[in-house]
């Protein structure tokens, strides 16, 4: 006989098992695509073009060498198929070395290849394994993608300028919002929100002519100005809520002790506000780093990094493993910053509705 208590426990067990199955399924749906693009970015070009794709990148690659019609026959071990696959037949060792570097992700000097070939006298075929250069897609992406390195530097410049402009201009306005009542305050709060929601493309299109007139078209400062429009609004809101949470009495106390208003602000409020200001700065940074549509429209010969990655994807001729590497480089700062400021994300959404 099964007691009612046992039955209850059984059903509870089934329920929590089903519950965790559901949770794990959802987690997998989110994690798997991320896992695959990371894995793909470490695969060698040869592997990236095999089907099915290997699930994980290999740390070492196994090769075999034997005599071929044109010289030496190079084969590489295919981990998915479980057998050696012939990839090259040549007597030009320099060509073989270059091929192994570009297609097989392995850096081999000509001397090392000669060593292996000398072994052919005793044994045929010769087997050897080499370490795979896991970062070779990343190196190759920056080598062969036109503008990749300068655009990366340019993007960082634009992000820094955007942070500088939006934090100084938005921070001042945020302080005024937090500490003072003034005519038109709510009207300005409203416009700040409206500007934040305004479509980026509707600012970028007319900005082409305006920036060209200022000599800022296709320049980092031009894009920084455009990105600052939305980010000043955001910084104003974030900094206003930070300054509101710091009691004004601290500044007043400092002034009683003889500090000027500015000194009081710098000595009391500013240090307390720093973590929040850093979060606001990171938001501005990520916003500017991720943006593509304005960058596409407002640049011509000096694209941002996001435009370069976008173009390598649209071109469709690009290699998938290189596209994956570009995508990962694009994602790293955003992921890093987002998880630093994770605590503030909820606060901010809360701030939008309040």
């Amino acid at each position, binding site marked *: 006989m099964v007691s009612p208590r046992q039955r209850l426990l059984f059903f509870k067990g089934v329920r929590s098992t089903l519950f965790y199955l*559901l*949770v794990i399924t*959802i*987690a997998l749906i*989110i*994690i*798997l*695509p*991320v896992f*695959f*693009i990371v894995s*793909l970015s470490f695969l060698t070009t040869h592997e990236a073009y095999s089907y*099915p*794709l290997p*699930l994980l990148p290999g740390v070492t690659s196994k090769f075999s060498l034997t005599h071929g019609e044109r010289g030496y026959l190079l084969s590489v071990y295919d981990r998915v198929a479980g057998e050696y696959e012939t990839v090259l037949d040549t007597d030009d060792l320099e060509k073989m070395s270059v091929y192994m570097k570009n297609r097989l992700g392995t850096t081999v000097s000509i001397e090392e290849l000669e060593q292996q070939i000398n072994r052919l006298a005793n044994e045929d075929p010769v087997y050897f394994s080499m370490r795979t250069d896991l970062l070779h897609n990343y190196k190759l992406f920056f080598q062969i993608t036109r503008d990749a390195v300068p655009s990366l530097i340019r993007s960082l410049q634009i992000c820094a300028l955007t942070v500088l402009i939006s934090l100084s*201009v938005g921070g*001042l*306005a945020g302080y005024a919002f937090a500490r003072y009542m*003034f005519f038109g305050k*709510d009207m*300005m709060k*409203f416009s*700040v*929100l*409206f*500007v934040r*929601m*305004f*479509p*980026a*493309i*509707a600012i970028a*299109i*007319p900005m082409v002519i*305006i920036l060209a007139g200022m000599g800022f078209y296709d320049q980092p400062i031009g894009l920084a*100005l455009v990105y*600052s*429009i939305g980010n*000043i609004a955001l910084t104003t809101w974030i900094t206003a809520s930070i300054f509101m949470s710091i009691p004004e009495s601290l500044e007043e106390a400092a002034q009683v002790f003889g500090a*000027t208003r*500015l000194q009081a602000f710098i000595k009391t409020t500013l240090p307390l506000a720093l973590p929040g200001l850093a979060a606001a700065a990171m938001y501005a940074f990520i916003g500017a780093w991720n943006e*593509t*549509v304005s960058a*596409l*429209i407002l640049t011509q010969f000096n694209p941002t990094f*996001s435009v370069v990655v*976008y173009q390598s*994807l649209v071109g*469709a001729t690009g290699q*998938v493993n290189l596209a*994956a590497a570009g995508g*990962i480089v*694009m994602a790293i700062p*955003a*992921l890093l910053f987002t*998880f630093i400021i994770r605590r503030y*994300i909820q606060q901010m*959404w809360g701030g*939008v*509705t309040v």
Partner: protein
Amino acid sequence: MDLAGRSHQNRNISKQLLPYFLVIPALIFYVLFWLRPVLQQFIDSFTNEAGQFTLNNYRLVFSDPDFGIALANTAIIVVISVVLEFFLALFLALLINRNFRGSSIFLFLVLIPMALPAVAVAAMWKTGLTTNGWVNSMLMYVGVLDVGEKIYWLAGSRWKMLALIIIIDAWQVIPSVMIILLAGLQNIPRETEEAGYVFGGNYLTVLRKITIPILGPTIQTAVILRLIAAIQIWLIIIVLIGFSRVPVLVERIVYYEKEVPRLEVSPLLVAGYTIIVTVIVSIAAISYLRVSGAFSRRDAEVEDGVA
């Protein structure tokens, strides 16, 4: 800004003026780089080359054979993805709000897609959905596909492409909808829902009669913010399927501005399309601000001023 040496009266006036000094940089910035370009664009869209008033730009847009399709595609994507994303996000938020063992790690994982730039997400699915990509590889490993069998994800009808776009879009943006709903859920006092159970309600009745109504304003916030973003979808479409196959409004602007900028009609079409997108998004934004109460507080101030 050393005010110590000034007279009391001076000091009072400058204290009153201080907030204006603080907001003036922002104000100037907005006038120069937001108001001016937007007004300019608006005026340009109603003038011809000779500077006279004309409706020609809009006539041109409306007679563009792709306009109707772009508008319809945008509407389909917006409606389906907003509804789909809302329900899945609500489901996720309710799940995480149960505070089960491991829910904080789960929240951490769920937030990952939100942190990824659109270009990185596009790279992820572009490499995944090609015929030799990781999606087919994975399906083969788990046994859904036979050896050598492949699914041609990126070929096919308009409806298949739309479905694909909606699913990928949902993958990326559900977390951002979820986080708003979760914040709202966490603000509901436990006792409110417990009262519902005390009076004999089951999970679904409590959800329907108590939780959702209290969550109302939060839901409106989440949905309208999503709406605004969904109207502007373009990048994932161009990367996955290219220009002009599944035209949407913003994609048309990018197309005429960057792909065929030398066509005589291109600048005119760009001007027209841009204003149309602006108007649609602005309507959504204003309705959001109305819902979130930004208007009511402004009205209150106006009334105060009258009194």
